[in-house]
Each structure stands twice: as structure tokens, then as C-alpha cells.
């Protein structure tokens, strides 16, 4: 039995501890938004957060995630304040990012981890965070724009006018 929390829900999984987290999430838990692309951490389609860090679930044994908190694409919106979508998900819609859409769960989870650590990333920071995620439909330009859009919104949201003056 492996215990972990997925999107805030405690789970006990009766699986081979060596089974990659990807397959446990998809087959045992039934959350299919996380995708299988390569199985060797080369494409990023399987990206989820483990304790807030973006990981490739296709090469992460369930045992390594034991006791941890996992966020998948299905739980991303709930990690952002307020109701509705995560700002990145809204930016993805506004910029019309997805084509086939298969890689986008992983792209969004990588981007969310990036913004968590760096709310206003420059192009190099975006490249560094996103180069592990392949988009065969080639929507890199739109992904970059959407990340910047979401970042600018979050900067606006957290900036309180006049705060510096009073500080």
C-alpha cells in the first residue's frame, strides 16, 4: 500500500511500488489528464507537481511519491486563488495555445511550477523551464505568449498600489 495525496485527496494505492506514478494516476486513480508520451522523461507530457515541484511522472516510482502531495492538471485550477481556472489555463484559452492538446497538461504543469518560483520570467527563464516539454504541433510561440500573459496578470494582482509609499 502506498499512501499519497492527489489534488488534496488522500489515496491508498495497492500497486507495485516500482510502478511509475504516471500509470498509478491514470489507471488506479482514474485521472487521465496526465499523459504518456515517451516513458523516459524526454517529452514532458506526464509532468505533475510533487510537493510543488514539476516532475516527470513516467519515471518516478510511486514509492518515491509516498507521503507526498501531488497536483495533476485536474487539480491545477484549485491551486490558484479564487474560483475558476488557473491564470495559465485562462491564458492558454486567450492565446488559443492547444492544437491537438495532448502535451498541454504537461506544458501547463511545467509553466505553473515556473511561475510559482519566478512570477515574472524572462525569455531565457521560460526556455529553461519549458525546453523539457515537446509540443509536436509546434505551439511554442503561443505557449511563451500565454506564460507572459499569465505572469503579467499575477504581477498586477499582487501589486498593491501605494504600498511602497507607505512601507
Amino acid at each position, binding site marked *: 500500500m502506498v499512501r499519497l495525496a492527489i489534488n488534496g485527496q488522500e489515496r491508498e494505492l495497492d500497486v507495485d511500488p516500482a510502478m511509475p506514478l504516471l500509470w498509478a494516476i491514470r489507471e488506479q486513480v482514474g485521472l487521465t489528464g496526465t499523459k504518456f508520451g515517451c516513458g*523516459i522523461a*524526454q517529452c514532458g507530457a506526464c509532468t505533475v507537481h510533487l510537493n510543488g515541484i514539476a516532475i516527470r511522472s513516467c519515471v518516478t516510482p510511486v514509492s518515491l511519491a509516498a507521503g507526498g502531495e501531488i497536483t495533476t492538471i485536474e487539480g491545477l485550477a484549485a491551486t490558484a486563488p479564487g474560483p475558476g481556472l488557473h491564470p495559465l489555463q485562462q491564458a492558454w484559452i486567450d492565446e488559443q495555445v492547444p492544437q491537438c492538446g*495532448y502535451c498541454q497538461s504537461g506544458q501547463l504543469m511545467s509553466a505553473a511550477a515556473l511561475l510559482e518560483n519566478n512570477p515574472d520570467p524572462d525569455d531565457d527563464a521560460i526556455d529553461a523551464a519549458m525546453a523539457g516539454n*515537446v509540443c*509536436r504541433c509546434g505551439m511554442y510561440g503561443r505557449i511563451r505568449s500565454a506564460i507572459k500573459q499569465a505572469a503579467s496578470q499575477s504581477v498586477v494582482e499582487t501589486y498593491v498600489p501605494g504600498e511602497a509609499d507607505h512601507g
Partner: protein
Amino acid sequence: MGKWTRRAFITTGVLAGGALAVGVALRPGHRAPEVAGEVTESGESLINMWVKVGTDNRVTLIAPHSEMGQGAHTALTQMLADEMDVRWEDIAYQEAPAIDAYANWALGKGFILGDADIPAALVPTVNGVFLQAAKAMKLQVTGGSTSIRATGVYGVRVAGAAARELILEAAAERWGVASSTLVARDTHVEDPTSGRRAPYAEFAAQAATQAPSTSPRLKSPQDFRIMGTSRPRLDVPAKVDGSAQFGIDAQVPGMHYAAIRQAPVFGAKLTDVDEQPAEAVAGVKQVVRLENAVAVVADSYWTASQALSRLTPRWEETENDAVDSDSLKRRFQDSIAGAQEGSGPSQDEEWGDADAAFAGAAAVVEADYHVPFLAHACMEPMNATARFTEEDCDVWVGTQNPLGFRHEVAAALDLDLDAVTLHQHYMGGGFGRRANGDVAIQAALVSRAAGVPVKLIWSREEDVRHDHYRPSVTSSFRAGLNATGDVVAWENTYHEKHEPAEAPLIPYAIPARRIGHTDVPTHVPFGPWRSVDHSQHGYFTEAFFDEVAVAAGRDPFDLRMALLEGRERHQQVLRTAADMARWDEARPRGHGRGISLQESFGSIVAQVVDVHIEDGGLSVDRVVLAIDPGFAVSPDGLTAQMESGVIFGLTAALFGEISIEKGAVVQSNFHDYPMLRMDKAPRIETHIINSYAAWGGAGEPGTPGIAPALVNAVFDATGIRVRELPLAKQDFSDWG
């Protein structure tokens, strides 16, 4: 193939904008009642084959095209909403079921009643072996960049306009007025005289009893309200929250999971396998032998794949066990040389007197080009879920050809067609690969053998090594120049021809042209790969043209423009790309700019690429693209397709190579079949020119022109001619 030639296609296209002689969904007679049970729910009225209206006034387009990210669902829906005067908020899309009534042949019949064959543009999207002539009528293909320019233009628009007419007529009868006095607007019928206004839904049931007109009046472009605007794609919201259901996400009660290993050498059969090492693994249900593969069925995919790795299947020897990329390339070269010296190739085009032109030429430019095999590498590896019972078989899969898959599964399992039900899903990439039913057949066979529903997933390694490949092609060129530098002759001999037939032809007015091909069958399976033959010939012809321009002492842009005299659409596209890219602006040492022009699938595209060499590496900095698609139904959708087509072609030009050793594919996953990633992706600017000529395709035309513009830019930067792809093989260490 067939009587529906490309020429017929274009000729018919001239009618668009006026009244169409024959509509696709609307052949004489009223066929909607035959299929109403398949596509409607309680309260919905099927006005014609492709249009239904609900009691809530929601209008749904039912069309036979699948969605793999190309945006066809949304653009087709725009076409219906506009012609039928439906509010965008009231419209929906439903993919047609995989039944004969929605096969592509309906499309063909619409053009040439009673004697249609599959359009040439669709031929390459079907498996060349299993789905030839007879079965070709049973297709439901999304491919050939045809959704908008064929189904949309000749089907959806006509269906929408006809449905609008019927609803107006039903309203006129109810209200006792002439239909010509009524106005259709925002999914409502309005009577300006009396002020009456009522939703379409009130008249839908009556309208559905009437046979639709086969020649309704279509809107002229100046009256478009929704066509020509960018609407948010209908499928995007589900693709940002994980809810979009791809084939691999199908869940069926009692489902088991299967992993498969196929014979490394194409065509080899399984001779023997000791099942015991896999069967000993906890959770394994069964090992299944297939003709050319072995599969393991287990309670999880992980278990199945782990158990499969313990097997050592034996494969029969074949005559191809020693074939490798080098030996294939020699065969290609020998075939071309033999044709040049001997009886000559099969002619694609013979124009003017090439022999005389070469005999009189002051200079001759010669070059040979070569490209490797390519895999599709869809992000979603091949997979299918099947449930076989004694009576029937259900298949859950994402496919570019739902009806064809049904036929293939029925044939492979010796079932009646009616016993096979296909459940269509989103595709995690298609690019031509998902027109082939191999994995659906395997899933059905494994389910039958195991007696349980089975989700079969190919590993990425199986996906790369058992694709249906863009063929490796060699192409040999000669061009003749006269004493003043005019291009007087163009000769091109290549091997392996598929579709479209015109792919190797050039638009330039060179007075003598001879273009022909040889046939060199290989054991490597062929598949249509985004833009099909244009993917090779766009590179070959536009890169060699650049060589000719340089040899003639002419600017590559200027020489193209001069030889495009009279082709105003081509010239405008080329000029637009050059202007936007500042073609004439000087570039520093180590920087280069290249240009290309390619017409494919009814659209004309020019690309200008800027590169520079830095620290011995090639950087692709900017792509400026201009396209004349006739008319852009969704400008942002078209732009997205151009961006996607460029990255797809650029990935291939920079990295793409599937090589053969000992009869089998060497590469296996993204570490040795690399993809372009964000950190190396160029800025892409797209400029759309609506010329209102016949509407062209979008999914493929962005791909062919990027490789030649790229290598021409590399020459401009370095003086190095790249005549063989991928560019990753090129050493730039002396530069930068």
C-alpha cells in the same frame, strides 16, 4: 486515380460564391430520414444530413471530420453558422458517426453524379495496401487538407444555406406570407412587415420533412459575418483542464491493458515465443501471439510492459534482414542513373525541347538531393481499446478515418460491418499517421484472444519503429543557362512517387522542362506525412532553384519574380513575404536569409528564414510567411496552422532522420529522434492574403517551404550548400 481529378476540383471551385449546381449533403432526394436515428436525440430535427436543430434552438453541424488540433471542427462550424444565419452562441459540432452515409464518397458523388472516385488529394491518406480502389469508397478521411476546401465549401455551406431556406419556407407557410419577405437573423426568423419574430426551433420539425434544395443561394464574401473572423476553438477549453478524451483515455468496464512488441524487420512473422517468463509475472492474464507481434495482457499497462520485456520472441528471417539506409540510397541512385541513361523515367511533365535546350546551353548546373525516412511521432503513441464479444466488437480510438477503421477491423476479424462500432476520440496528433488502422486491428485481435476488453498502448519505441514512414527520396537535377544567364532548361529525375501528383512541378516559366520519376519499392511501409510528396519536393526544387539563381548571377527573389510573370497570386505572396522580412536588408557575416515559394493543397505559401551561425551552431531566428489560401475562414486558425506547419517542417529539416539497419529502424524515442523545442524555436510571423480564388487547405501548406528557405539561408550565411537533410549532420564548426 479516378475521374475526380484535381482539375475537375478546381474547375468546380469556380462556382463557389454563386449558386452551386450540386450540393454534397443534398443530392436529389431527402436522405436525412434514413440517418436521423443515428445522429439525433429526442426533440432534435434533422433538417438535412448535416444540420439538426434542437427545441432549445441549438443548431448542430454533423460533419465527417475528426479533430487533431487543426481546428476543422471550429472552422466548419463557422461556415454553417454564417450560411444559416445562426448566432455563434447557438452553434455546436458533432462528429458524424462512422457509417456509410457520411463517407467521403458522398462528397465525390456530389461532384460527378454516379461515377465518382476518391479525390486525388485523399489518396495518400489511406493505406496503400489495404484500402485500395474498392474499399476506397468506404472512407471517411480527414486528410489532404480537405476539410474546409472540400467538405466545407461543397458540403457545409450548401447544407447551411439549404437549411436556412427550408426554415424560412416553413415560417412563411405558418405565417401565411411569402418567404421572400422574411429575414433570417441570429437563429430567428423575422417578419419585418408584422414585427413577428420566432426561433428556428419552431419551424425545424416542419423543415425537416421537406427535401432540401440542391442549389441554395450561397452568401458572397462581402456578406460573411462569421466566416473570415477568428472564433475561439470549440475544443480548446477541454484541452486546458485535462478533460479532453483522447483515445488513450478510454475507459471500459472490465478493461485490461496490453503492451506489444512487433517484428523489428517490417514484414517478418513471429515464429516462436516462450510465454512462461511473462505469464509468471503477477497480474499478467495472457500472452497473445499475433502474426507479426507478441502482446501481453495484464491488469495494468506497467505490468504488461514489464512482463513483455521478459520475452524473447523469435522472428522469421526475411529477404530484407540485411537492408540498410546506405544500400537503399544506392538503389535509389542506381534507379535514377539507369533511367537517365536508359529508357527514361516515367514522365510527370514534358514541356518544350529539353534536349535541344541543354545542347545549346552555355552552362549547366547539376546537383543531387536526398532526404531520409521520417516518422510521425505523434505525441500520443498509437493505441486503441477494443471489446470483442461473440456478437460484436467495439473500438475506442482516435482516427483520421473512422469508417475505414471499421471496415479494416471487420475484415481482419471476419465480422459483418454492422457488428463493429467505432467510438471516436480526440487525436494526440495525426499528421497522416492515424489514417492507418493497424493498432485498432491489433487491439481487436488481442481482445478476442484474451476474452476481455483490452486497451493496447504502443510504447514510444514501438511507435517510432513501426510507423508508416515519409519515404526517403533521392532527386537529381540539371538546369541549363544561356549566355546571358537566362534559365532555359530544367530537368529533374527522382524516385518514388505518391501524391499529390503535381508536387515535383515548378511554377516557373522555364521554356524547357522535363520531370520524371522511377519506382523503387522498399520494405519500409509508406505513410502520408504532413504535406506528403510536397515535403520532399518543396525542399528539392526550391533549394535547387536557389543554386540556379546563384549560378545565373541573379538574386533568388528577383529571378523567382521574373519567372512568375503572369502568376499574380504567386508574385503577390512572394513579394509580401520578402517585404515583411526586409529581404534586401544587409546582414552581417555569419547571418543569412533564404526564401522559398510552394503551392500545395490549393494554397500558395512563401517563406523567408533568417539564420545565423554562432559558436559552430546554427540558430534559426525568424520565419516570415505569407499565404494566399483563397480565403481564410478563421484567420487565427490559419495562422496557427502555419506556425505548426513551420515547426513540423523545421523539426524534420534540422533533426529528422529514421535510418535502417539490418532491415529495422534504428531510432526509438525522443533522445535519438529529437524534436524541436521551445529554446530553439524561431519567431514566426504569418501574413494572410485573401485573394478570393478557390479556397485552399491549411493543415499542410505551411510545411513544405521551410526546409528550402532554411538551407538557402544557410548558404547565404556560409556558402555551404545543404543537399541532404537533416541539417544536424552539417558541421558548422568553422563558422561563428
